[in-house]
């Protein structure tokens, strides 16, 4: 098919179609109805403000079209029990019906000669191409695209280009935007109870909807345009309550290009007091520009983001695509312009996990943003700052001081963890994470400090970061007990290994809390020395006692960490070593999660670990432990870990890589890469696993590249697998842009812009790297031996 030119690159290459580079494409050939929900998740388009699943425009028996707007939560009033808020589903703006000779085109009814969907990762565009043999004998070529603009986050765009080999009479194209039907487990925006619009004639292009319980108004302005060889054809417009339908009836002539463009603009009362007016005005402005410009500016913005984010793995195409897929969804998940929302467990790609925010964001996804797009990281941390009041209330409600963040939260920060789970075997399991999984407060503190160390964002640490550190430290200072042994103990918690509930002295929780207490004391000293006025202000506002930072330091020193210097092992929690040992290898690798096979009670009485727990500590605090401690703990806990959580494989890949065990690292890395893409777990249907995607990036950068923060720069301990010819990625450190290239025996770091910094490779001599310069190292004999060879 001859392409209608669309400029999707800054370099001026014009074409209307996805990139040809297979390393930037995720493809689905043909049509398998059973996979539709998964395809909808994997191929979703999103920009952090709004995300749309990749449902077929014409629908199918399994289609579940859904668009999610970050922060627009509602509560499903008909949910039995105690309903919790969830992301509300916005109307299906992508619906498009094509009738040919009175017969509706539907993939499940056949007639297509070939069919392909392609996610163009490079340009952030979902493409669909197929040839259709119409019942009346005509052959139609269709190419369509869809995007959520990264350049203008309120804008969604859809385009369909049709060309026929011969004349096809009786075409009816029908474009509608409508609320759709309620699906189980989804709450939808409704036009009921929305105040009437006051925007006059423009209302023809407008849908106004509201949430039922949270009082959020959403305005959606839409306009479709059909052009035949460039000439515009006006639609027939049908206005119905809560929806608008535009349709065209025509005969398709051979050789002509029929191009349908639909622009959609969304504003909510979260953004502005006048969402309707802004949506209408914004759409009006867009209608004055060429639709190709909407694609062009979006594609260029993606191009810019990739310059800051792209990870290149030379030597493994499958992993290359997987890492780009991860980065694609991470880029599309966060909105640096909105610091009142965070990224949910499935981002904006599906309704599973209800859009709830977990520790996933801070410990799994945030590092990607910190080192590639700090404004996004800042916005995500500011969400935690704005939700401090809810965290304070939760701590207070449970009898503690300071701030205890919700295990699951929405825009308000309140605890929204469901109270129980009913598994399909009928077992009702009380969910205690919201009551006992307290490490999330220290996880957030860790992320705050990591952001500060990596960016040097003084405004953030003064305005928000320090307060989070102080309030979380205060929580830990009230959470534990000084016992007779003179040590500070934390009882009755759930660690990352959620198979064991209500345990005492969970190593992960205690060490994180210890670090949180130390860090808050460091932050207090930092503020007192560098910004004494802000320090006094905070002391006053938070009613911080002058001795509190010293108390934090003291408690940190007394913290019981369960570390045994004799064995070099952390005991995961008190009594863990005495539990039943179960040989995981006896169970199949693709079996049910082991807790389902063994039953809850036996699992709790065993050493089976759900996910990286002590191993997660190694990942977060690599430099605090001796190499032999890291080795001993990984070798002890790795065979006991079932990876019953999608968060686990990537962290094991990262730690194994740092240990230099690249075979094990690659095995786990592939496992992590396959979580969504290999369709081997079935639950990508509810959305992509955003934390696993963040973990994949961390496995590359912290694992295989061995990134660590130095006081005045960055260190790397490269373990590039021999099967990879090269590993390349950019990083941002305190405003300095770096490009790193690692090969099995060489390393090269270039400072592209910014200030000079110290770079250390392995245990080699640190090098001062000036902007515009690059330095090369060669691996020497022995572990960690690297020698500078050129600069």
């Amino acid at each position, binding site marked *: 098919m001859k392409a209608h030119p669309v400029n999707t690159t800054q370099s001026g290459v014009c074409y209307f179609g996805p990139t040809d580079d297979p390393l930037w494409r995720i493809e689905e050939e043909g049509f*398998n*109805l*059973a*996979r539709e*929900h998964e395809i909808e998740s994997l191929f979703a388009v999103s920009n952090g403000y709004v995300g749309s699943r990749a449902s077929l425009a014409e629908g*199918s*028996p*399994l289609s*579940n079209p859904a668009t999610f707007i970050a922060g627009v939560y509602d509560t499903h009033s008909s949910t039995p029990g105690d309903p919790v808020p969830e992301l509300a589903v916005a109307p299906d703006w992508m619906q498009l019906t094509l009738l040919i000779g009175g017969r509706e085109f539907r993939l499940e009814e056949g007639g297509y000669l070939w069919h392909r969907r392609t996610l163009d990762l490079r340009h952030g565009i979902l493409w669909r191409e197929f040839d259709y043999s119409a019942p009346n004998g005509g052959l139609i070529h269709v190419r369509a695209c869809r995007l959520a603009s990264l350049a203008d986050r309120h804008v969604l765009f859809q385009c369909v280009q049709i060309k026929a080999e011969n004349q096809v009479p009786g075409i009816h194209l029908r474009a509608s935007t409508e609320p759709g039907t309620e699906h*189980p*487990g989804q709450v939808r925006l409704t036009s009921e109870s929305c105040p009437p619009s006051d925007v006059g004639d423009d209302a023809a292009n407008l849908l106004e909807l509201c949430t039922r319980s949270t009082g959020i108004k959403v305005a959606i302005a839409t306009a479709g345009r059909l052009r035949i060889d460039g000439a515009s054809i006006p639609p027939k417009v049908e206005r119905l309550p809560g929806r608008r339908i535009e349709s065209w009836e025509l005969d398709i002539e051979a050789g002509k290009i029929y191009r349908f463009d639909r622009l959609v603009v969304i504003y909510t009362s979260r953004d502005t007091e006048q969402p309707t007016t802004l949506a209408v005005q914004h759409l009006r402005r867009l209608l004055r520009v060429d639709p190709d410009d909407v694609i062009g500016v979006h594609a260029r913005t993606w191009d810019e983001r990739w310059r800051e984010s792209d990870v290149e793995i030379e030597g493994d195409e499958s992993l290359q695509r997987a890492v780009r897929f991860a980065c694609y969804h991470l880029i599309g998940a966060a909105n640096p312009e909105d610091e009142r929302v965070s990224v949910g*467990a499935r981002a904006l790609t599906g*309704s*599973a*996990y*209800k859009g*709830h925010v*977990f520790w996933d964001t801070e410990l799994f996804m945030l590092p990607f943003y910190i080192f590639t797009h700090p404004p996004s990281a800042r916005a995500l941390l500011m969400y935690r700052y704005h939700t401090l009041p809810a965290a304070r209330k939760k701590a207070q409600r449970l009898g503690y001081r300071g701030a205890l963040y919700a295990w699951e939260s929405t825009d308000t920060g309140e605890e929204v*963890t*469901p109270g*129980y*789970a*009913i*598994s*399909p*075997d*009928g077992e009702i*399991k009380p*969910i205690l*994470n919201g009551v006992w999984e307290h490490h999330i407060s220290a996880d957030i503190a860790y992320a705050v400090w990591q952001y500060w160390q990596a960016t040097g964002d003084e405004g953030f640490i003064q305005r928000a970061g320090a307060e989070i550190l102080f309030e979380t430290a205060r929580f830990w200072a009230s959470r534990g007990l000084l016992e007779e042994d003179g040590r500070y103990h934390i009882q009755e918690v759930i660690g990352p290994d959620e198979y064991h509930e209500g345990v005492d002295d969970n190593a992960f929780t205690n060490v994180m809390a210890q670090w949180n207490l130390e860090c808050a004391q460091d932050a207090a000293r930092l503020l007192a020395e560098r910004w004494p006025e802000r320090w006094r202000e905070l002391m006053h506002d938070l009613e911080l006692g002058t001795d509190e930072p010293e108390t934090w330091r003291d408690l940190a020193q007394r913290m019981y960490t369960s570390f045994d210097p004799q064995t070099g092992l952390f005991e995961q929690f008190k009594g863990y070593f005495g539990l039943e040992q179960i040989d995981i290898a*006896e*169970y*199949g690798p*693709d*079996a*049910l*999660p082991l*807790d*389902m*096979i063994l039953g809850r009670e036996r699992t709790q009485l065993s050493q089976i670990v759900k996910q990286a727990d002590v191993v997660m500590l190694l990942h977060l605090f690599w430099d605090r432990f001796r190499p032999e401690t890291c080795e001993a703990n990984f070798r002890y806990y790795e065979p006991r870990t079932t*990876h*019953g*959580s*999608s*968060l686990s494989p990537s962290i094991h890949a990262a730690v194994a890589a740092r240990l230099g065990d690249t075979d094990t690292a690659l095995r786990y890395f592939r496992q992590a890469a396959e*979580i969504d893409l290999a*369709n*081997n*777990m*079935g*639950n990508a*249907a*509810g959305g992509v*696993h955003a*934390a696993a995607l963040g973990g994949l990036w961390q496995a590359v950068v912290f694992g295989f590249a061995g990134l660590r923060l130095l006081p005045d720069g960055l260190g790397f301990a490269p373990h590039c697998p021999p099967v990879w010819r090269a590993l390349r990625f950019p990083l941002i450190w305190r405003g300095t842009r770096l490009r790193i290239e690692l090969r099995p025996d060489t390393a090269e770091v270039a400072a592209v812009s910014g200030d000079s910094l110290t770079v250390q490779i392995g245990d080699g001599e640190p090098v001062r790297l000036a902007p515009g310069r690059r330095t090369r190292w060669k691996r020497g004999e022995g572990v960690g031996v690297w020698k500078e060879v050129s600069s």
Partner: protein
Amino acid sequence: MSAVPVEKNTVVLPLDTTARFVAVLPVAETVIRLAQATPCIVQTEMPPIPLSELKNKFPGLKTLLEHAIIAPPRERPAEAIIRAAAESHSLCIVMAMHEGQRKADTGLDGIAEEVLCEMPCPVVLVPPERGAAPWRVRQVVLPQDGTPVTARAVAPAIALAGCAGAGLLVLHVSGAHAVPPREPGSLTAPRYVDQPQHEWPAWAREFLDRVRSLSGEYPVKGGIQMCMARGEPGPEIVRFARGHRADLIVLSWRGELAPRCARTLRHVLQHALCPVLVLPESHK
């Protein structure tokens, strides 16, 4: 069982004077009524017994025989049943699992096993042990291995449950050494359960969505529920069906009874207390 063309609207009912027919008759009556089908009677005893005698022996037959088609008798009972079903494009065959000698590995007698192996259409196999009690379809157990082909195959059973106003219990059995199916689009128990409070409801919805959409979206008034059991599929299906007082177990089958094949089907047929509807996976 479904909105099918008129020429297919027959149900084959093998008829003899043994005790097994007492158990089959109530099941056949219900199936024929729900499907609004015409009974196709196949006499499996040679020489055939006059119908008047049979009516006297089984009073329940009178109504059925009013509109029945009588298939020509043949030397071999299994052949007579198979040919009757094939020639009239029947919706299904309703017959007893056994009378007298049972095969050790299937629990079926020779006639039932031969019919099952040929299977020109779905077969409802009735355990004679159920006796003459009336049969109502209130609870249907629908084991699913998560493959699209299995989901597609059970469309007639979902239609039957819909007609009967029965509840549908979709059952997925998984265990320690379960091997995931290779068929693209298969959905088995999740490998990762990050947070059970979210994962299980989402998984159950997805499983049911796929079964429903692949099998034709028949409305099920009695409700449809996703269930999971741990262990070996055969024993778990039987245990689950007993525990839920199932009136019918529906199994789809690829049609292979060779040694080491159809372990689940063999076990269910040997131990089920209720009728088992066997659907060929290639059946349209």
